[in-house]
């Protein structure tokens, strides 16, 4: 920002007043500020990550030695089910789309908020409620124990009389509502709220990744919801969707589940691709190689991902002519990923890499992702897949993908954007140590799983005999597990300490390429005092444009301070289309989320009356929500 003389100061003050949040806790409850919602997501998912991690460590401890008795089979079954459900639905998706997406996307596209701020708040509160819903069930002793893929008939009433699978089915539908709302919100935000001038060919690759993930969620989740509706009806209301004796089908569950489940895997890692393509330019001071291919590859991974679902079902005995379709798609879905890997590597080589902690995590991510990706590629060979299917080989593969490829960039991103969110710098050396701990730990944790898999160790077994010869590998894995946990604690400790007494970061410590670095750290409620000018995909490197913003502020152009205003532009070319007033903070999202939670509670305890009453209250609160229009407030 240039020297601030009086008119400018007045304008900034106006904005400050205009965007002033409610004070205190009320402010957090009723907030519609994407940054606050992002932080709420971040903390909630962090807690759930801790729970999922604790479950994982308990399992590793049980498997550390043969015939171990740390937990019994029924506890162990609940543990791996909860671990899977938590990490996928309650950690990675909300952490990437929820926390990173919410906080960063409006900043990166130069908007002042999401397209639907109140819906954004709603998706968080619904997510929180669904998490509580599931874990209250778990704490009350009815945790689901049918594995995260909940195959019928094992999860039907006949074989699983407890309440656990009802919690599973409803919690997933409930959580699905949140994710669907969020993804719809992201898509519209990235379509309509981009700063004028940011056409498709100037949108950061980070945004393309989140666009892909959002489209994936939007089209994948309904299949899962349908599946869970069937499961719930079959368990509680005597329908026969999965009942072979009455003309149902058990494979129906698997088809619908994996139609969601495989795109899901890409939905988990594509945001990580986005984080990588955001961090690499900053630490190589070089535009990402092959921008058009990166952009399309990110979309393509998810798109082709919709055509591979039955490669999770190669052992169910489908006709060969059916499975080849999925093998072919599985083979080619490798290519977009390969394109990205090559262009990341080439960007690193042809740029000037500074291996600070975030870039270290990205390098580690590339290594882990290629490792997991290549073993995934092996499943194109159907007979080989049928050999290792459901063994620890598969566990190793998708943990290399999900931990290595999805979570590493999340960690990298935590370090990278920490200065933006807190205004402080993290501690570099401890950060690098935490990386090496996590990198060594995860490889020690997951690599031996490949071997025990090939030696025939099935997944989801609570113990094994010494004669199997799996003991040494499992012990190594457990040690790796604890090493990883230690590394993660080091990471979090670093961030906490840095938050308390880190160096001030300034607006742009990395000379980052995208717009979030063009505003102060932490950003003000209105993100940008003037709607930024954009003439390339690396807006923050266009010095002339940034100076222009400063001039605009000085002579009051593009400040949009006549209300709670932001700019809306056309979809393809980002032509400045209209100026709209955004909703202020609203109490209705948490209220509606609460009513929804009560509806699901009523359903799970079989009190349909209660559910009906609160369904009505949902409608009422929707009425209240829409009573005042943004410009009336």
């Amino acid at each position, binding site marked *: 920002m240039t020297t601030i003389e009086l008119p400018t100061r007045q304008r900034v003050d106006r904005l400050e007043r205009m965007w002033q949040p409610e004070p205190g806790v009320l402010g957090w409850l009723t907030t519609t500020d994407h940054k606050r919602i992002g932080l709420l997501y971040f903390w909630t998912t962090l807690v759930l990550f801790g729970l999922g991690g604790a479950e994982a460590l308990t399992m590793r401890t049980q498997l550390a030695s043969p015939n171990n008795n740390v937990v019994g089979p029924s506890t162990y079954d609940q543990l791996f089910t909860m671990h899977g459900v938590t990490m996928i639905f309650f950690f990675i998706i909300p952490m990437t789309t929820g926390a990173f997406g919410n906080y960063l996307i409006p900043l990166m596209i130069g908007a002042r908020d999401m*397209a*639907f701020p109140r819906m954004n708040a709603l998706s968080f509160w619904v997510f929180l409620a669904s998490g509580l819903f599931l874990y209250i069930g778990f704490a009350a002793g009815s945790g689901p124990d049918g594995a995260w893929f909940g195959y019928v008939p094992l999860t039907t009433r006949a074989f699983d009389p407890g309440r656990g699978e009802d919690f599973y089915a409803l919690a997933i539908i409930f959580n699905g509502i949140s994710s669907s709302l969020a993804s*719809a*919100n992201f*898509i*519209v935000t990235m379509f*309509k*709220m981009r700063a*004028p*001038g940011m056409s498709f060919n100037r949108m950061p690759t980070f945004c393309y990744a989140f666009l892909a993930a959002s489209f994936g969620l*939007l*089209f994948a*989740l*309904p*299949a899962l*919801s*349908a*599946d869970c*509706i*069937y499961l719930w*009806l079959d368990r509680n*209301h*005597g*329908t*026969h*969707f999965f*009942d072979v004796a*009455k*003309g*149902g*089908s058990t494979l*129906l569950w698997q*088809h*619908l589940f994996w*139609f969601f489940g495989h795109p899901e895997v890409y939905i988990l890692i594509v945001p990580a691709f986005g984080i990588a393509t955001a961090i690499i330019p900053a630490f190589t001071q070089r535009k990402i190689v092959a921008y058009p291919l990166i952009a399309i590859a990110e979309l393509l991974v998810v798109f082709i991902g919709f055509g591979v679902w039955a490669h999770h079902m190669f052992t169910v005995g489908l006709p060969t002519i059916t499975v080849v379709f999925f093998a072919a798609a599985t083979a080619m879905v490798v290519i977009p990923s390969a394109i990205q890997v090559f262009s990341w590597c080439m960007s690193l080589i042809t740029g000037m890499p500074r291996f600070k902690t975030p870039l270290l995590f990205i390098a580690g991510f590339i290594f882990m992702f290629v490792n997991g990706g290549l073993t995934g590629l092996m499943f194109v060979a159907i007979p080989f897949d049928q050999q290792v299917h459901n063994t620890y080989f598969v566990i190793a593969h998708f943990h290399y993908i999900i931990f290595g490829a999805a979570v590493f960039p999340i960690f990298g991103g935590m370090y990278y954007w920490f200065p933006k969110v807190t205004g402080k710098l993290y501690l570099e050396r401890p950060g690098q140590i935490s990386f090496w701990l996590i990198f060594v730990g995860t490889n020690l944790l997951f690599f031996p799983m490949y071997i025990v898999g090939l030696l025939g160790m099935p997944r989801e077994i609570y113990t094994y005999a010494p004669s199997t010869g799996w003991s040494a590998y499992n012990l190594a894995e457990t040690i790796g597990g604890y090493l990883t946990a230690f590394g993660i604690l080091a990471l979090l400790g670093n961030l906490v300490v840095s938050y308390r007494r880190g160096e001030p970061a300034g607006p742009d410590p990395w000379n980052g390429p995208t717009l979030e670095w063009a505003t102060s750290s932490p950003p003000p409620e209105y993100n940008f005092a003037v*709607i930024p*000018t954009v003439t390339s995909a690396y807006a923050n490197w266009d010095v002339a444009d940034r100076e222009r913003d400063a001039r605009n502020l000085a002579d009051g*152009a*593009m400040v*949009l301070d*006549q*209300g709670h*205003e932001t*700019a*809306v532009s*056309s*979809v393809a070319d980002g*032509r*400045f*289309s*209209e*100026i*709209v*007033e955004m909703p202020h903070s609203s109490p209705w999202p948490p209220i509606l989320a609460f009513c929804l939670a009560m509806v699901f509670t009523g359903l799970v305890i079989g009190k349909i009356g209660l559910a009906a009453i609160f369904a009505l209250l949902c*409608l009422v609160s929707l*009425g209240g929500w*829409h009573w005042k*229009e*943004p*410009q009336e407030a």
Partner: protein
Amino acid sequence: MSELAVPRTTQARNARAVARAAAERIGFPAGWWGMLMLIASEGTLMGSFVATYWYLRLRAPHWPPAGIPDPKVVVPMAMAGVLLTTSVPMQLASLAVRAGRLTATRLWLLLAFVVQSGYLAYELADYMDELHRTAMTRDAYSSIYFLLLGADHAHVFIGLLLELWLLLKLVRGLTMYRLNATVAIAWYWHFVNLLTVIVIGTLTSVNVV
């Protein structure tokens, strides 16, 4: 590029001003895109139901199973046709609102509302009647049959709620917010009508193939 060139659409206070602002902006508003997202998501859900119907049917030696009469064709098809025609008044309403003709908008919406609620009333009565003859818990066929049909009726019901809410809103004059809502809800109804045709078509297909 200056903000003076573009309309502050939410500040338009009367019907004509709103219509002018709507004409000046480029492309569809965010609200319309939001509705499109809802349609995409709902469409996929209903698509999963329809796919389930066909998947279960593939594995069945007799469809519908012995003892269940083939579903009625003529009346449901006719009703679906009637519902389909309501896309016309909905579209006319969405055109009228963009021309700032508030009364016309109200009238078209009202007309559509009457026809659609009539449709739903008849269909629900019929649904209950069928439920009494064949329980949803009889077998997989009846499960998916009633689920699919019920889900479709639910969509019609939600459409009616939206319409009712919109009519109440329009009593207090026109704003950009309500204009966007009208356009979006018209699209929702196009979706619901198409959906109904597909669902009825699927359920009655046993008489054809």
